[in-house]
């Protein structure tokens, strides 16, 4: 039974439920109060005694070290097997790097021809041609301009390194995500097995599995690919499963009547009809991949991430922002191109043309790129962008940040101190004062109310684990930070999302801002945030809100837009007013997707925990950082798993609540 079915069952049995069920949550709350009052008598309920702590991190660390250093299958070390696999999966990246950056050497012996990398002008022209092939002139200009920007700011090589990594990672990510989503759709058992795995992949902070990744694959593109895919595949898988579940049953019936085999049904009917939803998944894969670029650069992937990281460490904000903007523009170009290509409808007039004419733009682009590259032999300026022609505005932005820092600090400091003392500090103190025994019981009780015994057991065990490994205090700090941040992000994001869904103009205005917020490496705005708000929880909060507000807006916007027009028309036909339509038709029907959005907002907010640890919070994210610097795989994984458990519990409880709501509204009958 899924959570939804369980909840539906629970609703149906509501009348038959014993009365004491209603008392469970209040009882748990009373327990918390009692334990708090009796604190001196039961110190163990507040702070787990050291001898009760289960040393899971040591076990995991020993197991990881064994696996990574000594384990062998047959004559080969597990590590070497992984290295081998890594070399295979990174081969496309290395090949692209040669084509775009390093050049290729052909021939042997004396007759070695060094083919230079593709000319910068050639690449810009090619992407512009892709834009034309997609049928959008403005996109073509934008794409070309983006690559020219990368050349002009002097970061061409880095951009090409990043492009190589991203293109391959996104290709792998979309395919893997699609496959997983399809598998999840076909079998509930598989879905139930995969869903926790997806949760882990999305919520274990990357620094938690960075050390194992490095030990498995070594420094280089393979490890970078590995950590990127872990982060970027889950949204695609989830969105695919969700889209297939919500496929229009009439369309599916039509496919079946036409005699489709299951594979044809999937490939020719369901997936194409759900294209808008799937493209949201592709969008997220691209965004998250580019998000990982900085961390990937820390383990040998080089590229723009490295440039951003270096610049910000030296507090060259402007330079870091320029490189960060290059990452953002790359993300937007790739996303828009993929959206455009996916949105094309088959054009039968075009189909009749011969191959060369049909693909004239792409072939033309390729031809011009090859021409520019060949000309590069004669005109070196074409092969390698001349350093003299570089323009940067780095100093300007440094100046802007300095000016804000000096002149606005009084007001900023006042707001900060006020919120710190009146919002953050009290919530943090409350979170830390709660006895862990009471909280664990409360979570179990809530789970029981929402989803019966099964959910109660899951929620109870997950949170109990956190206490038993001795990470309670740090987990509470993480929890309070995320809770406050996601709440603020939702309060800002959902209304904006609703408004954006209504107004096409606003949507087009806001979309690039959202793309920027989601792909601008958080490091870029983290450092100015620390400069303005100082080291501490407040800066962490600001950073998480800035990051989480984008998915909140996006998913809400998408959810409102996905409400089927017939439903709204029907309501209008009944004579419903605008507000009635919104409240009784649009919002309830959009609720599942909005909650999916808030769910994702929560997941993304939690994934920011590791970044905020760089600011200076004393939470689970910091545990993973410490583990990274001590090369301790066990400590990092355990802290990461605790983060994942918090996310999973929140997600399960949230989903169960929504499922009950929907079942109560009769929304699930006859769908999917």
């Amino acid at each position, binding site marked *: 039974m899924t959570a939804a079915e369980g909840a539906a069952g629970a609703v149906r049995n509501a009348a038959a439920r014993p009365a004491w069920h209603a008392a469970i949550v209040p009882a748990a709350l009373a327990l918390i109060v009692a334990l708090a009052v009796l604190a001196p008598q039961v110190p163990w309920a507040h702070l787990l005694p050291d001898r009760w702590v289960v040393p899971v991190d040591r076990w995991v660390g020993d197991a990881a070290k064994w696996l990574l250093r000594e384990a062998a299958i047959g004559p080969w070390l597990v*590590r070497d097997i992984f290295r081998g696999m890594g*070399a295979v999966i990174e081969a496309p990246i*290395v090949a692209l790097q*040669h084509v775009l950056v390093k050049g*290729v*050497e052909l*021939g*042997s*012996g004396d007759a*070695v021809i060094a083919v230079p990398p593709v000319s910068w002008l050639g690449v810009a022209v090619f992407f512009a041609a892709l834009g034309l092939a997609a049928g959008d002139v403005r996109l073509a200009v934008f794409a070309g301009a983006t690559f020219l920007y990368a050349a002009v700011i002097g970061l061409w090589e880095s951009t090409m390194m990043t492009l190589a990594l991203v293109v391959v990672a996104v290709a792998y990510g979309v395919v893997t995500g699609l496959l997983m989503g399809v598998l999840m759709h076909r079998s509930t058992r598989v879905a139930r097995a995969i869903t926790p795995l997806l949760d882990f992949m999305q919520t274990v902070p990357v620094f938690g599995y*960075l*050390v194992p990744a*490095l*030990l498995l694959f*070594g*420094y280089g593109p393979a490890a970078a690919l590995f950590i990127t895919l872990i982060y970027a595949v889950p949204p695609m898988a989830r969105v695919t499963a969700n889209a297939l579940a919500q496929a229009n049953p009439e369309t599916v019936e039509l496919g079946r009547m036409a005699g489709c085999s299951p594979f044809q049904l999937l490939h020719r009917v369901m997936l194409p009809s759900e294209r808008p939803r799937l493209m949201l998944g592709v969008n997220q894969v691209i965004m998250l991949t580019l998000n990982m670029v900085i961390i990937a*650069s*820390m*383990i*040998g992937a*080089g590229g723009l991430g*490295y440039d951003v*990281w*270096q610049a*910000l*460490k*030296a*507090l060259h904000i402007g330079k870091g922002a320029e490189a960060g903007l290059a990452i953002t523009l790359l993300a937007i170009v790739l996303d828009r191109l993929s959206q455009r290509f996916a949105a094309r409808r088959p054009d039968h007039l075009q189909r009749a043309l011969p191959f060369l004419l049909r693909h004239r733009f792409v072939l033309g682009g390729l031809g011009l790129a090859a021409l520019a590259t060949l000309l590069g032999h004669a005109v070196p300026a074409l092969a390698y962008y001349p350093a003299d022609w570089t323009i940067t505005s780095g100093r300007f932005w440094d100046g802007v940040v*300095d000016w804000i*820092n*000096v002149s606005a*600090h009084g007001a900023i400091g006042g707001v*900060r*101190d006020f919120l*710190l*003392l009146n919002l953050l500090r009290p919530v943090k103190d409350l979170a830390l004062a709660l006895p862990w025994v009471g909280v664990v019981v409360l979570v179990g009780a809530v789970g029981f109310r929402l989803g019966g015994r099964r959910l109660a057991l899951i929620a109870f065990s997950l949170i109990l684990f956190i206490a038993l490994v001795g990470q309670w205090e740090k987990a509470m700090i993480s929890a309070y930070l995320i809770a406050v941040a996601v709440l603020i992000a939702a309060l800002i994001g959902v209304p904006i999302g609703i408004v954006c869904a209504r107004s096409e103009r606003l949507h087009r205005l806001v979309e690039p801002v959202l793309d920027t917020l989601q792909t601008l490496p958080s*490091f870029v705005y*983290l*450092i*100015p945030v*620390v*400069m*303005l708000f*100082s*080291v*501490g929880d407040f800066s962490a909060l600001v950073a998480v809100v800035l990051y989480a507000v984008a998915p909140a807006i996006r998913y809400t916007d998408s959810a409102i837009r996905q409400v089927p027009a017939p439903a709204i028309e029907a309501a209008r036909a009944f004579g419903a007013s605008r507000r009635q339509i919104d409240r009784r038709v649009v919002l309830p029907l959009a609720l599942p997707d909005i909650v999916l959005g808030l769910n994702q907002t929560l997941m993304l907010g939690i994934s920011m925990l590791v970044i*905020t*640890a*760089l*600011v*200076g*919070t*004393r939470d689970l994210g*910091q545990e993973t*950082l*410490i583990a*990274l*610097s*001590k*090369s301790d795989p066990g400590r990092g994984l355990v802290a990461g798993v605790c983060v994942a458990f918090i996310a999973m519990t929140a997600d399960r409880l949230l989903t169960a609540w929504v499922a009950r709501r929907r079942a109560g509204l009769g929304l699930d009958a006859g769908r999917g």
Partner: protein
Amino acid sequence: MNAGRLIAGPLLAAALATGIAAPATAQVPESEDPIKLAMIGYSGDNLIMLIYGKLIERLGYTVEYTPADYLGQFAGLETGDLHIGSPGWDTTAKAALKAAFDTGQVLNMGDIGIPVFEDWWYPLYVKDVCPGLPDWTALKNPDCVKALSVAETEPKARFLSGPIEWGGHDQERIDALGLDFEVIHAGSDAALTADFVAAIKRKQPIVGWTWEPFWLPALYEGEFVVWPAYEDACYDDPAWGENPEKAFDCGRPNGMMWKTAWAGGEAIWPKAYDVWRKMKLDSKTMGELVYQSDVEGVPTDAVAEKWIAENEATWKPWLE
């Protein structure tokens, strides 16, 4: 795999096969495999690696500069993913260095000749609110404490420290010497310097962790706090020093930068390892290089080239 190496391999094999008896001492470079040098991002440390890399390139070695994390590089050194490590500082990497050497997979290649110093540092204008600095007793002054306090630590003053894993024993020092301070840890060196520089720019009183050689004390005028001089007994023996009941009632120990390398590489590139062992710089040189790179903004590559061009007498003996 590097396409270039695909050709170099057979070329080398062919050369060997047309076989003259192998010479008694292996020819430099003994292997075409690239030597991976860890680049941790600080200009000073990067410059050391750049100078070394360029020198062994003159000998014919292939060099690859691999970005790595300062403390995370030790994992790579143990497995052979990194070959030459960026020097570890006694002041922050002592435990990591010991752990790495203990595995037997990482070699101690000696110190590089540059002493490192990390301690409490303040910009000069802080002396206006804390008269008596740089002597540590000035930090006991209630006006000083008030000026250095922030919302998080009120009524205590704030000491802005680096990430917890850097150590430093500052909380113990505060307790032992009876200071009214609280340690706030930045999560990363970037956050530490960002907070520091922002405070300096708006002339907010601040005292925090800084080190030399580094661009921060080179760029902004300031001084280190002067504590009772460090002795080993201070850390081990509570009876020592100002406070007869507690240890850590003194300043911090100085240290050196230690060169590291992957043990397996000794057999593959013995000459390159030999050069690494012999390489030695000094504080004055380091300070100048860091100044050129960070304050004057010269690209690190150019700074390294310039140094090599101007100091042949210094580096020639390393290559012999």
